[in-house]
């Protein structure tokens, strides 16, 4: 396959190029955006602000029941008919199942949604982190988790608990680094493009709507 030594040759070429040319000396240690840790309530408030300003929908309540009509309506106006959640995500499955009577909905399997002929779908999944700094939802493939709900559905419903919130990106990456999964996916609002006349248009390839549902 690979001619022997191409990689070694590349590294050697770089080493030779660097020889005799002074490296810059600079101070180090500053870290932008570092500030005192926020309280959980402030963290959630900042997340909500950033998430909504980038096109995300945020729902929170003391329990699931009072949120169901609004969530159902949000999915219905997006044309969603099929609801799916990954195997093993009990919390997401419960939300999807409870929501069925609140619109023209039925439950579907992830396999069905992966087909090109799939109906308009909402994918439900428990999010691993929510980053306050940027208003970002984090899904990873850790421990064999699927990425399909946030990837191929028309509406992505991310279920959050207060413990999922972190202040900054660093904290989330550090936590995931211990057992680094194949994929870490930062999701901030719906899929968008500005490629035609620089006009912001929602729903390029990923979900057209992202709803964060915060439950205690």
């Amino acid at each position, binding site marked *: 396959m690979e001619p022997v030594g191409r*990689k070694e*040759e*590349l*590294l050697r*070429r*770089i080493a030779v*190029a*660097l020889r005799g*040319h002074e*490296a*810059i000396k*600079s*101070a*180090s240690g*500053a*870290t*932008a*955006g*570092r500030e005192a840790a926020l309280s959980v309530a402030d963290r959630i408030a900042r997340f909500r602000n*950033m998430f909504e300003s*980038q096109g995300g929908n945020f729902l929170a309540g003391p329990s699931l029941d009072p949120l169901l009509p609004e969530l159902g309506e949000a999915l219905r106006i997006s044309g969603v008919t099929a609801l799916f959640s990954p195997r093993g995500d009990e919390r997401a499955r419960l939300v999807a199942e409870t929501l069925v009577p609140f619109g023209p909905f039925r439950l579907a399997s992830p396999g069905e949604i992966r*087909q*090109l002929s799939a109906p308009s779908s909402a994918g439900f999944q428990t999010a691993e982190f929510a980053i306050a700094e*940027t*208003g*970002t939802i984090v899904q990873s*493939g850790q421990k*064999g*988790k*699927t*990425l*399909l709900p946030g*990837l*191929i559905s028309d509406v992505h419903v991310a279920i959050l608990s207060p413990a999922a919130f972190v202040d900054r*990106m*660093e904290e989330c*990456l*550090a936590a995931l680094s211990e057992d*680094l*999964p*194949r994929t*870490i*996916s*930062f999701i*901030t609002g*719906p*899929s*968008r*493009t*500005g*490629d*035609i*006349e*620089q006009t912001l*248009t929602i*729903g*390029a*390839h*990923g*979900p057209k709507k992202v709803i964060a549902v915060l439950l205690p």
Partner: protein
Amino acid sequence: MEPLSRFFYRRSEKALSDATLQASISRTTGKFVGARADAVAAFPGFETARDEGSRIKRETLDRLDHHLGRFIDEAERRGAVIHAARDGAEAREIATRIAKEEGVTLAVKSKSMVGEEVDLTGALEAAGVEVVESDLGEFIVQLAGETPSHIIAPAVHKTREQVSKLFVEKLGEPYTDKIPELVAIARRRLREKFLSAGMGVSGANFLCADTGSIALVTNEGNGRMGTTLPRVHLVVAGIEKVIPRLSDLPVFLRLLPRSATGQPISTYVSVLTGVKRPEDPEGPEKLHIILLDNGRSGILKGKYRDILKCIRCGACLNICPVYQSVGGHAYGWTYPGPIGSVLTPLMTGLAEGVPLANASTLCGACADVCPVKIPIPGLLLELRADERDRGLKDPAEVFGMKGYAAVMSRAGILEALERIAGVISSVFLKEGKAPWLPFRFSGWTDRRDFPAPAPQPFRKLWKKQRGIRPWNR
């Protein structure tokens, strides 16, 4: 891609007389400049992040052999196959061999400037692979048989009507000039490809050395789909994309989207590490990473090292008065704007690319917005000096500049010449402007009038009024 930078002036003239192009460029750059300024103003940590990003990038380059070696080891440990390409031809040969060995007939490609640089798509297509550009802008440009004209917005030179006509002609879709409908068409046509492609091709925004991870930043979601659904993932990245640690990534995520589109963060950031694990329900079984040199190790050697800090945000394009006037295609190669004016001569040869280094007013706006503080105007000046040292400058220009320097440092000669100029100009003047200059200087008056010498030279005025100095009024 074949460089055409030596034709910069001719291509600029064409761009300047294209009214549609002029309208799209000014709309786009105006939007980007405003959005960036707002995003920076809303983030108090931006300057600190710039210092930090600049420092990390430079320190990484200063020990690139070490960091790249680490990246290779870590990525291989997690199942990646690493390929080193000395130049574009090697990259093309490796990519087509991979496609052949993996039995790929359809590939979906995310936007990659390095892919453009080596014409990866062309090579794969020549080898019989159908390559579909999945970034909407690139998809449009591919249908039109053109090349991108902006680093982050490839189709800025196209209007919605032009896009719609393309979709009618090439895809058989009904005509619509509504942008959401055009986007929906592309979504449907490309979803089909994502679900059936055997290989996803992408670039890399960052390569994290301590984990062997690839970081990809997109808004549309094509980058995630193309690197998650197909069986094979092929990455092509320049060797300068390495950052030492995964934990360095947030600094650059604070800089890149704000500088590029004015977003606090791009919609999607994917950190991809190795191949699909046994327990993973999706992800590529094979991961090939082509590390491209193509002249970069040569740039590393000398005084231009800082240009390799570039994170390809496009901020310097948007702010540049030259780019704002002529757009991306005039530059004649993959990288337009101020960053391209430095990279192109260094990567394609001074003789090819040096018109770009001269096509700058050195106003410094590019350096002001650069998120990693690349001193672009200084590098452009270095290139001009190299041009002279290698005898590539027009001897008349060198002679003229030497004469100019001699005159300007001798007050008596300057005064005498000013008088002569005053007399000559009274003969040749037309409405206070000189419409032409003699041969050798006619390049100036081809495009505009030369301003006439003032009837009273400044130095004479100064002498007359020297009693009235502003500082002892």
